[in-house]
């Protein structure tokens, strides 16, 4: 039996290769995702384990590490002494760390970090707490001295003794390089540049006063990190986060994985689609092979092979195919992981070292590949075993169409769940459950659609194909009829495109809505003529605003900062703005009170927050922040929710009193009346050009910059569309090849009674187009429902507009038709090449 199995495998190489492709793709996505996640994990775990202190104390809510917003939170300097006094602490030092410190090259340009942050740190040298390892020179000890990380020093061409210029959130700094150091084992920090100052200079530059970003603690030999952390918690009290090195590393990689989770989810989604379609392709292929071999199998049965032997022989073929597919897929996974690593490299996240291939990845790849293949081959294998020995003498075998009733019931139930969840998400409104409900609804909807697709196939294809007989005559009519003949097959074939387009359409609607919302926000809210900000919303020096204010072309300047304060016991982000120019730069819609409510220690809140907290104009609330004095704030106005400022607005004075760092995030510029636009821009640019990290944008450019982020995500999603198209093509090719094979005699008859090759090819092509357009139509419909649901659910996240990108959706429909055309090329040619006589004579 085994020899018969292997012979059979070799005899159908091409068809098996075709069906293996989908398995290869599915396994590649699974393996690629796992390899990439493991690599990410290892890189960051290594980095943090080698650099993190035994225990770290950071302000609560601010433990966002190197990627967190700079200078918003700090711990008071006095806390260091408290921590040092804890039993078991070998050493404790406060450290400062802030983004927005960039090294200028000798040519005067900002050193390119590939989008990674430029970070300024204080140099700590204490046993067990060294910031890094000096490879040259010494640590910075006073103002005017810096140490550079070795990567940046090398890239910019600096050595110990050179004079360098640094851009900081505060003023420009001239300094002498006194040392070069490495950070962590790989000598770098995922692409970021590091500049080390002495503690006092770092505190001054980053605006934390005499406070610190956090405190590093080295443990004594006789105490475990966990135990020490517990003791430190007891000593410092509430309001601080205390973490061991392990916890810091875990949190960092968890945060990173969460940030990248949408990529993992998308890749997994495509793995599932690929495997789903792949399993169907394999089912088709094995059905074909079994059907072709009915006589052969029956002969084996007649010669005494048991049912089990026949089943096993077919399943053995599947196992071999699954192993080969998984092996190639695993290799493909390396390719995908390499691609992802390169992609992240361009975003500034450099992952050094080799890709990590864990045993888990290998086991999962083979398990998935082999299991899916064997499960898909199970049905045809059973069918093969049921071949009666007498079939060896007969030439007719009839396929019985199973009832779709159970599927219909199951699908309708799922769609009902989906409808309930989606309706619930609309009803849920602001409660925060809406996105989760849309998620559940979306999943149920897609699964329901997959279940119902065979039921829908006949009526929908009939309608879609209605114009074909008129447009393409007999070829059109036959194509329409053929596409309806086996609705299960049509539905399964169309499913890859359906699921792919559901995702892409859903995100397309969401993205278009998000972009329209940005436009609406800028149109409705931004009154200023220009906005000055960094590309990624990092803080920058208020010098920019000061110098802009002095220009004669400028009528008003509005500075905006973000700060974290604890208001009425609840920690929250608030915007801090110039009380006097708020109305000039930004238009808020006031429900009660107004911008004059900011005067003194005033507070503006948005409607939702006011309702949640039960605040009204005139109420007084307690506010405190880690770095400053507790203050009483008076609610002076309530405004309609607005993304530009968030849920609360303070005045700059109040923010300063609360200890917020004096760093701007946005500066809005209003030009004086009658100023020449070109001249004004030139004047503004001369000021802004002196600060390479900030940019000057007019309203359109500002909106465009905000939209670019959305577009980048959409681009990634559309890249995955390409994959679903590829899988769809594979599925359609396979199905058509099978249909052509099954209809050999029909094709022979058509050719005998006068259908020429061109017409025959057209028949096959139109059938493919119908199937793929069917998938596209379902996908577009589902995607619309999901996109609209998602957009409505995210309304309180600032996606206020609902836009359906009609042109794009029409494009997808055309794409669907094109996929059919492309997929039909090979099966159509095969059909047309059939020799009439052979085809007629085929049993």
């Amino acid at each position: 039996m085994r020899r018969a199995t292997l012979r059979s495998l070799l005899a159908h190489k091409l068809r098996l290769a075709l069906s293996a492709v989908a398995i290869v793709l599915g396994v590649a996505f699974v393996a690629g995702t796992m390899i990439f996640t493991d690599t990410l994990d290892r890189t960051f775990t290594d980095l943090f384990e080698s650099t993190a202190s035994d225990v770290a104390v950071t302000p609560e809510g601010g433990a966002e590490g190197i990627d967190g917003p700079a200078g918003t939170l700090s711990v008071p300097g006095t806390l260091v002494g408290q921590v040092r006094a804890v039993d078991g602490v070998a050493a404790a030092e406060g450290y400062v760390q802030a983004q927005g410190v960039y090294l200028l090259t000798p040519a005067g340009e900002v050193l390119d970090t590939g989008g990674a942050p430029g970070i300024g740190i204080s140099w700590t040298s204490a046993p067990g707490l060294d910031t890094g390892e000096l490879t040259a020179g010494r640590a910075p000890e006073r103002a005017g001295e810096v140490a550079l990380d070795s990567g940046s020093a090398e890239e910019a061409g600096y050595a110990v003794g050179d004079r360098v210029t640094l851009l900081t959130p505060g003023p420009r700094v001239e300094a002498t390089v006194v040392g070069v150091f490495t950070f962590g084992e790989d000598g770098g920090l995922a692409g970021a540049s590091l500049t080390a100052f002495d503690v006092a200079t770092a505190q001054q530059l980053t605006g934390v006063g005499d406070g610190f970003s956090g405190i590093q603690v080295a443990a004594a030999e006789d105490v475990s990190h966990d135990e020490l952390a517990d003791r430190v918690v007891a000593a410092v009290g509430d309001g601080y986060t205390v973490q061991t090195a392990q916890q810091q590393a875990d949190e960092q990689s968890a945060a990173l994985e969460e940030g990248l989770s949408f990529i993992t989810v998308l890749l997994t989604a495509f793995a599932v689609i690929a495997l789903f379609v792949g399993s169907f392709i394999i089912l088709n292929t094995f059905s074909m092979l079994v059907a072709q071999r009915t006589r052969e199998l029956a002969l084996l049965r007649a010669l005494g092979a048991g049912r089990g032997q026949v089943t096993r022989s077919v399943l053995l073929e599947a196992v071999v195919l699954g192993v080969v597919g998984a092996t190639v897929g695993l290799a493909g996974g390396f390719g995908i992981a390499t691609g992802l690593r390169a992609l992240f490299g361009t975003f500034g996240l450099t992952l050094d070292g080799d890709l990590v291939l864990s045993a888990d990845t290998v086991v999962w790849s083979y398990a998935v590949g082999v299991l899916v293949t064997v499960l898909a081959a199970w049905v045809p294998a059973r069918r093969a075993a049921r071949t009666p020995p007498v079939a060896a003498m007969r030439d007719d075998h009839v396929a019985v169409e199973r009832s779709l009733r159970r599927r219909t019931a199951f699908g309708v139930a799922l769609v009902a769940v989906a409808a309930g969840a989606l309706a619930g998400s609309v009803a849920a409104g602001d409660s925060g459950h809406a996105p989760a409900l849309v998620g559940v609804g979306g999943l149920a909807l897609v699964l329901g659609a997959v279940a119902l697709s065979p039921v829908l196939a006949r009526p929908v294809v009939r309608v879609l194909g209605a114009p074909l007989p008129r447009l393409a005559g007999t070829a059109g009519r036959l194509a329409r009829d053929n596409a309806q003949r086996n609705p299960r097959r049509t539905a399964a074939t169309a499913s890859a495109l359906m699921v792919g387009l559901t995702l892409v359409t859903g995100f397309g609607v969401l993205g278009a809505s998000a972009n329209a919302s940005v436009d609406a926000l800028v149109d409705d809210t931004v009154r200023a003529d220009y906005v000055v900000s960094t590309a990624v919303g990092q803080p920058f020096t208020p010098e920019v605003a000061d110098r802009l204010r002095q220009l004669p072309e400028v009528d008003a300047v509005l500075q905006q900062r973000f700060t974290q304060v604890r208001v009425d016991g609840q920690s929250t982000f608030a915007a801090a703005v110039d009380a006097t120019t708020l109305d000039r730069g930004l238009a808020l819609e006031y429900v009660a009170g107004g911008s004059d409510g900011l005067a003194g220690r005033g507070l503006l809140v948005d409607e939702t927050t006011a309702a949640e907290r039960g605040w009204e104009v005139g109420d007084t609330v307690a506010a405190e922040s880690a770095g400053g004095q507790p203050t009483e704030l008076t609610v002076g106005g309530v405004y309609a929710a607005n993304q530009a400022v968030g849920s609360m607005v303070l005045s700059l004075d109040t923010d300063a009193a609360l200890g917020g760092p004096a760093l701007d995030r946005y500066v809005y510029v209003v030009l004086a009346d009658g100023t020449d636009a070109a001249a004004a821009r030139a004047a503004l640019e001369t000021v802004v050009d002196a600060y390479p990290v900030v940019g000057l944008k007019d309203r359109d450019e500002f909106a465009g910059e905000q939209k670019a982020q959305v577009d980048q995500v959409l681009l990634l999603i559309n890249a995955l569309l390409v994959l679903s198209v590829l899988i769809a093509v594979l599925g359609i090719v396979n199905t058509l090849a099978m249909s052509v094979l099954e209809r050999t005699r029909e094709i022979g008859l058509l050719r005998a009674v006068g259908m020429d090759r061109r017409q025959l090819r057209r028949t096959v092509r139109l059938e493919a187009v119908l199937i793929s357009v069917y998938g596209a139509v379902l996908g577009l419909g589902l995607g619309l429902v999901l996109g609209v649901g998602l957009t409505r659910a995210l309304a309180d996240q600032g996606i206020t507009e609902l836009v359906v990108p009609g042109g794009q959706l029409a494009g997808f429909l055309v794409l669907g038709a094109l996929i059919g055309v492309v997929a039909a090329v090979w099966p159509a040619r095969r059909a047309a090449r059939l020799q009439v006589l052979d085809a007629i004579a085929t049993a």
Partner: protein
Amino acid sequence: MTPVQQTSPAVPATAAGTPAARGRALTKVYGRGDTRVTALDAVDVDFRHGEFTAIMGPSGSGKSTLMHCMAGLDSLTSGSAWIGDTELSALDDRGLTRLRRDRIGFVFQAFNLLPTLTALENITLPMDIAGRTPDAAWLDSVVDAVGLRSRLGHRPAELSGGQQQRVACARALAGRPQVVFADEPTGNLDSRSGASVLSFLRTSVREMGQTVVMVTHDPAAASYADRVLFLADGRIVDEMAAPTAERVLDRMKAFDAAGRIVEVG
């Protein structure tokens, strides 16, 4: 069988004396070397207008090959075949396809109809493929002649085997071809259904002036023809006019008795 009204001549006028189809030195060889088989061995044959010819012979005698080559379904190793004035070897695939579509009717032993099309759609299939509108009056008379008016909207699966073959016959005639080739049209039918198909073919010759060439191994079926050609080992070995089932059967027995090597004038 319903009498057929002769509404118009079934066959386009051709020069008097030119056969509807003819073959000269038809030779077909399969394989090479040791496996070389000569299926047709320099056969000369004429099929006259308005004549019902049956081709008979034992298995492997070349009767199906002869029909396939005459009908443009198979290519010749050497020799020439004509449908009317058209020489088949001069045609490419598209030309042959057009010829089959417009000038030849086919009835096969089985699987004559597309399962997705109704009986009427199957009947008009060649014309639909060509993009031509069928002659309604002619179509009517053909449909009446096969007696299937009430079943035109049915799909093949809803028709009996005999009905399916009659639909196939109607399709073969609907385009008024120069020649109808029928390959064992009654091979899968019981004798009653077979008889009705054969009577219809004969009626089409007698009353509509159709030319029919039928391959069969059944002496009873051959007795419906005007003329029977006997093939053995790729050659025409005998011809019988006005055949009856008994005479044909006797002649066939002679083949068997002589081990297929009987030579007759």
